[in-house]
């Protein structure tokens, strides 16, 4: 697989992670506000919010390496009328601008809470449109492996799974930063962190379960369809299914260590050291799993074309 395809792998994964993290952070923030005052919640979430923008910018930089003529990449927004690729770039840039504007206002606490919340909801909707546009790009009649509901399902699952774990890692990093700086609210923050990670963990396990069902079903359906679809399935099962197997095993491993953490959280308060080890480890393992999964997605590019 060449540089141009690796550029797409990074672009789609990082772009989806950014959208997923934004959505998950929004949900965590909303739920946490029911139990805690906003000054405390913002302490944990605001720094995490600021991390999303650079990830998205990195995604767009990676996408340039996909192009034969990157110096005129800006032209990709021209044909929004019919091209899903143009729509992808337009919604992606709009998500970057809206999400960035929200992050700035939230960080500086400019404007009313309701105004900021409205902006965040609009950004989230545009972000979902970004991920769905990405999926629509691949749903071409010429590409049987991609032209199924499995594509949007896989992209959304990846967005939410990587987003969930990335938010977990960002929370741990924020917490460590605040503790180093002797934040006076560190005790209350510990409780918030423990509860947040518990429910992020539940989400991650559920999302891996979705993948465990949908990924094998997709491969089986392609195999059964014959023709180019079956050739795609053979590509996805390359190396005797080793890559696909490793991808699923790593996802399960990530879910298992997070799941163990969740179970423990119901028995006793989670030690900070344990959380700080387990969540980044799970993120790393799942990230490798997702890299392999996306690699197989592009390897399955077997068109009906001669």
């Amino acid at each position, binding site marked *: 697989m060449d540089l141009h395809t690796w550029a797409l792998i990074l672009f789609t994964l990082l772009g989806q992670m950014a959208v997923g993290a934004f959505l998950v952070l929004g949900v965590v923030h909303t739920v946490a506000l029911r139990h805690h005052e906003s000054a405390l919640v913002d302490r944990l979430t605001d720094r995490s919010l600021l991390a999303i923008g650079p990830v998205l910018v990195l995604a767009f930089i990676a996408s340039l390496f996909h192009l034969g003529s*990157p110096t*005129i990449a800006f032209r*990709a927004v021209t044909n929004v009328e*019919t091209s899903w690729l143009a729509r992808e770039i337009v919604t992606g840039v709009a998500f970057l601008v809206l999400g960035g504007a929200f992050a700035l206002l939230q960080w500086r606490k400019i404007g009313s809470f309701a105004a900021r919340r409205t902006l965040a909801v609009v950004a989230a909707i545009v972000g979902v449109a970004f991920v769905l546009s990405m999926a629509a790009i691949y749903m071409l009649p*010429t590409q049987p492996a991609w032209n199924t509901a499995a594509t949007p399902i896989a992209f959304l699952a990846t967005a939410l799974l990587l987003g969930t774990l990335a938010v977990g890692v960002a929370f741990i990093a924020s917490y460590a930063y605040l503790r180093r700086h002797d934040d006076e609210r560190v005790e209350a923050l510990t409780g918030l962190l423990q509860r947040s990670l518990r429910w992020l963990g539940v989400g991650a396990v559920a999302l891996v379960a979705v993948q465990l069902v949908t990924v094998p079903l997709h491969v089986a359906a392609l195999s059964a369809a014959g023709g180019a679809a079956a050739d795609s399935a053979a590509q996805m099962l390359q190396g005797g299914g080793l890559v696909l197997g490793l991808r699923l095993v790593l996802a399960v491993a990530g879910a298992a260590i997070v799941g163990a953490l969740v179970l423990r959280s119901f028995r006793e308060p989670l030690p900070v050291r344990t959380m700080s080890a387990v969540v980044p480890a799970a993120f790393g393992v799942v990230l490798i799993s997702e890299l392999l999964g996306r690699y197989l997605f592009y390897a399955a590019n077997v068109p009906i074309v001669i």
Partner: protein
Amino acid sequence: MAQEQLAFFIDLDTCVGCKACQIACKDKNDLDLDQLYKRVVEYVGGDWKKDGDAWVSNVYAYHVPVQCMHCEDAPCVDACPTGASTKRDEDGVVVIDQDACIGCRYCEWACPYGARAYDADEGKMGKCDFCEDYLANGEDPACVAACPLRAIDYGPLEELEAAHGDLKAVAPLPDADISHPSVVFKPHPDARRAADDPGAIANLEEL
């Protein structure tokens, strides 16, 4: 739809697969080694079958020259994010504005005929433009002029359909409903057998 859609007529019953069209096209467009705007597909099927005590051969083979079909519903034009790929109003020929092409290769995924050939050195997409410069000078496209058997012709789609029927897909080409290609084929007699006894492309490594 274009005012008068220009189309190819390809007589598969006459084509012997000499690939003169492919070479003339490659020469005219000065293409790199790994680039082809016109490709001649060899389609081979059948086997030795037992008939009573005898083994009888029903092996068949025919050739299908394939280039951009200048489709009426061109998926490449819809896919192109920059609008570099357009369908000309006057003759429906699909052309690529090289200055606008960003080399994203999305059109290549969308094309049902694999008719697009990427130029990695320039970072731009290329394909058959119906030899628009030749047409402007009143000359025939390179592939048409080169065919020693006169198996390739071109003209307004309606005229070609009136003269030769409206067959737009033969094995191994995809369903014509995907993009409504501007092409008319006269089938090879063995194309009929491909439906009951599917063959395979014999020269994949050349394509």
